[in-house]
């Protein structure tokens, strides 16, 4: 077996992974990046709308600052986030955007003078201050008090990823693409790299490093119907779950985006609504103001998706061969706007569903989009219970999103986390010795070889694609926007069967090389088990918070459930182990989000009592000590000035 060593091994070449690699390379470390696909094909490239950062250059961002951004993020999370992490994010986001400008992103800029825009669905004229001409501008997104989302037309992920990858080129950081990490190499609570399968020729290799970073994105494809790229099958979070010791956090927190197009489930950006697009029903009636008089189409995604589903359940959906949907109306934005600022959207509608958004309504429905949950890490990005393992981006539960993330916050997270956590990874790698335990690597590789042998030559009977489709069907049916105890119990029971089926898969071809069916078969156990952790976590959480909405428990319950779900899978043939930890230090006490109209059960503890249990509570669950004390980055009650100023 070939063994390749580096100081830092980064698994995943999207924005989060590449930014981390750059941070480490800047410290003189020897960095290696692995990727399933050529880096510029990573799913980061598909992000359209933009990145939130409180630069406050546009007149519609006047009065914005990181505290206001932080407030929006905490409310958006339905108080499920770690408020200190949200703070680290909001404080660093403007720096990250400017740095990306320095690296070469052609951000759209403020143009001085009068501009025609849409605000809350109505035509309006704003006057941009010529003093800010040429600075990075922003557009509106859901759940935000200000226009804060920086963009390059509707190809933001694309330009930022290309720019980031240019930096990787400039720094000469190697990327081994078409490589899939399939098992972590670890012993006694220390991770020393990963076993990797080449998707070019099937070779099994060991990549050994002082620090291993997982930045592989989300697991949306487990749902089958998802806006995600087809490579987002939860391979990175499975690496962690497979260890048996690293917990995944809040797996039940799954975002359903309001506007996947029908059919094909391809996303059209929230920027469509940010720029003035409206949601219409079967009667071409604009229904969102009836449900959300304040935010209308621009409430948070969990709320808009829920309202859309609610409206369809009232019989107001549009029937089609591909199931029910609603309409997204962009016609009034005009040809000029649709062919420039929303050109990708225009192309997607034209090419994939033959709809011209300049003259026609776009069929949309809420579609699985994002995983708030993932590998649980401390504020340095260091995984619980496993030294030397870091995670960031969508694959991680850092946890700035809690139970619902705001649009434009995840793309920004990749770059901000890469900057912040990248430094911590570098710090760790600089003070750690390389431990090349060949025996340990060989042992891990042997486990994977045995698995492959059994998939290829064993007496299994199941077809991997049928199991995959069934898992997606179960999740989409029972673990979606509206959840019930009964439905979730069915999902848990059914998914348990899929785990057994997954163990009994037989690959129909022994072709050497990339063997695409073997690749899927190697992922299927991880997909089935992660699906199970999502459904079981949702069943056990008897409250509604953010994207997790229980019809039988409609209230957010801060007295019992102001916590984070942690799940580990210590015995591969047994049941997963569920635990709960405090969400983190509370600065903004739980309250009303200002949209969504949900019920609340107040917390019984005081904020101080709650905060006292945070450090010991998280440490008891395996959190490694962060490099700074808990709360060091949380300026206490800075929000008061903002809220009181408003009142």
């Amino acid at each position, binding site marked *: 077996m070939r063994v390749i060593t580096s100081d830092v091994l980064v698994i995943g070449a999207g924005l989060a992974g590449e930014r981390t690699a750059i941070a480490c390379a800047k410290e003189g470390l020897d960095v290696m990046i692995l990727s399933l696909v050529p880096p*510029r094909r990573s799913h980061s490239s598909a992000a359209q709308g933009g990145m939130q950062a409180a630069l406050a250059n546009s007149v519609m961002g006047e009065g914005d600052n990181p505290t206001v951004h932080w407030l929006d993020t905490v409310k958006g999370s339905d108080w499920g986030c770690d408020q200190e992490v949200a703070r680290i994010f909001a404080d660093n986001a403007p720096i990250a955007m*400017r740095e990306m400008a320095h690296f070469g992103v052609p951000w759209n*800029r403020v143009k001085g003078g009068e501009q025609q825009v849409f605000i809350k669905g109505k035509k309006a004229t704003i006057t941009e201050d010529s003093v800010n001409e*040429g600075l990075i501008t922003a557009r509106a997104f859901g759940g935000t008090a200000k226009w804060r989302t920086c963009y390059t037309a509707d190809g933001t992920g694309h330009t930022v990823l290309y720019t980031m990858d240019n930096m990787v*080129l400039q720094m000469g950081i190697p990327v081994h693409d078409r490589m899939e990490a399939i098992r972590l190499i670890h012993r006694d609570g220390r991770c020393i790299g990963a076993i990797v399968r080449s998707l070019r020729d099937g070779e099994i290799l060991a990549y050994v490093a002082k620090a291993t970073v997982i930045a592989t994105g989300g697991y949306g494809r487990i749902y089958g119907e998802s806006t995600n790229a087809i490579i987002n099958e939860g391979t990175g979070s499975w690496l962690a779950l497979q260890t048996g010791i690293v917990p995944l956090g809040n797996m039940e927190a799954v975002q359903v985006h309001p506007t996947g197009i029908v059919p*094909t489930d391809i996303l059209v950006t929230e920027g469509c609504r940010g720029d003035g697009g409206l949601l219409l029903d079967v009667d071409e009636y604009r229904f969102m103001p009836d449900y959300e008089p304040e935010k209308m189409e621009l409430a948070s995604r969990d709320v808009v998706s829920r309202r859309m589903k609610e409206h369809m359940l009232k019989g107001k959906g549009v029937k089609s061969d591909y199931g029910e949907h609603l309409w997204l109306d962009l016609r009034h934005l005009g040809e000029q706007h649709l062919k420039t600022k929303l050109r990708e959207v225009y192309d997607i509608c034209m090419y994939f569903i033959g709809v011209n958004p300049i003259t026609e309504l776009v069929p949309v429905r809420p579609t699985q989009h994002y995983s708030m949950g993932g590998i649980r890490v401390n504020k340095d990005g260091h995984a619980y219970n496993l030294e030397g393992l870091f995670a960031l981006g969508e694959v991680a539960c850092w946890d700035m999103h809690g139970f619902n993330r705001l649009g434009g916050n995840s793309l920004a997270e990749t770059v901000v986390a890469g900057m912040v956590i990248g430094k911590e990874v570098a710090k760790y790698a600089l003070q750690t010795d390389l431990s090349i335990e060949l025996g340990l690597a060989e042992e891990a590789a042997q486990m994977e070889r045995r698995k492959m042998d059994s998939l290829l030559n064993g007496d299994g009977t199941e077809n991997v694609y049928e199991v995959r489709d069934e898992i997606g069907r179960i999740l989409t049916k029972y673990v979606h926007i509206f959840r019930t105890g009964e439905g979730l119990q069915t999902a848990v029971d059914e998914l348990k069967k899929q785990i057994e089926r997954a163990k009994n898969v037989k690959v129909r071809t022994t072709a050497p090389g990339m063997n695409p069916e073997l690749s899927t078969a190697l992922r299927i156990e991880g997909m089935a088990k992660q699906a199970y952790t999502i459904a079981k976590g949702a069943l056990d959480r008897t409250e509604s918070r953010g994207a997790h909405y229980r019809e039988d428990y409609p209230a957010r319950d801060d007295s019992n459930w102001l916590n984070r779900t942690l799940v580990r899978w210590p015995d591969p043939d047994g049941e997963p182990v569920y635990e709960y930890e405090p969400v983190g230090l509370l600065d903004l006490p739980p309250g009303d989000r200002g949209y969504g109209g949900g019920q609340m059960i107040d917390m019984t503890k005081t904020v101080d009592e709650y905060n006292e249990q945070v450090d010991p509570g998280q440490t008891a669950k395996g959190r490694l000590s962060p490099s700074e004390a808990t709360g060091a980055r949380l300026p206490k009650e800075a929000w008061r000035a903002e809220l009181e100023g408003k009142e």
Partner: protein
Amino acid sequence: MGRTLTFKIFRYNPTKDNDQPHIEAYRLEEIPRLNVFSALNMIREQQAPDLMYDFVCRAGICGSCAMMINGRPTLACRTLTSDLPDTIELFPLPFFKLLGDLSVDTGVWFREMGERLESWIHTQKQFDPEAQEERMDNATANKIYESERCIECGCCIAGCATAQVYPDFLGAAGLNRIGRFLFDPRDERGDQEWFELVSTDEGVFGCLGMMACDDVCPKDLPLLEVFAYIRRKVSGMALAK
């Protein structure tokens, strides 16, 4: 009644002993709005489990799935079978290294191209986290974005006659990349540096002007405009010498 489609697909697995390149035919009942992405998945899942091809975003954004469809390089994900005849021939893109069946190694080629062109902003300025960003005119940002929209799918290279006979040719994707940085005021490279990069047979003078690249570019990049700009710029530099 739906049609029965026949997919004639180039097959070759270089990792398999004694495998020879050949064509295999697969039949599929056409369903409404079928695209080549879904069709290939159906063929792999039901008929040819070892069939190799590349998709990532399946939304025309990532550039993974370019292939020759009835002789024309294009993105498979957004090609509807209803726009094609009953028989559909699928071949891998020429020019790039074949990994197997319809899968080619565009990633390595584009990385090498990027390294060759030093595809990054050349600047002496240091980033100052405390400072406001440098200003840029929005029209300039838009102009850069026009060229930055390239998704590196390789269609232009596959459709380029020069590239087929002269493998060092930068092709439309490479020239467009040069344009992207030429347009960018943040890039401090001087005329001399650009001149050396562009004014060669691998660069702008290798282009025979047949512009198949412009016909096949799935993102409708303004290639004609970019090439004209580069030519003008290079001529100006030559005169100035």
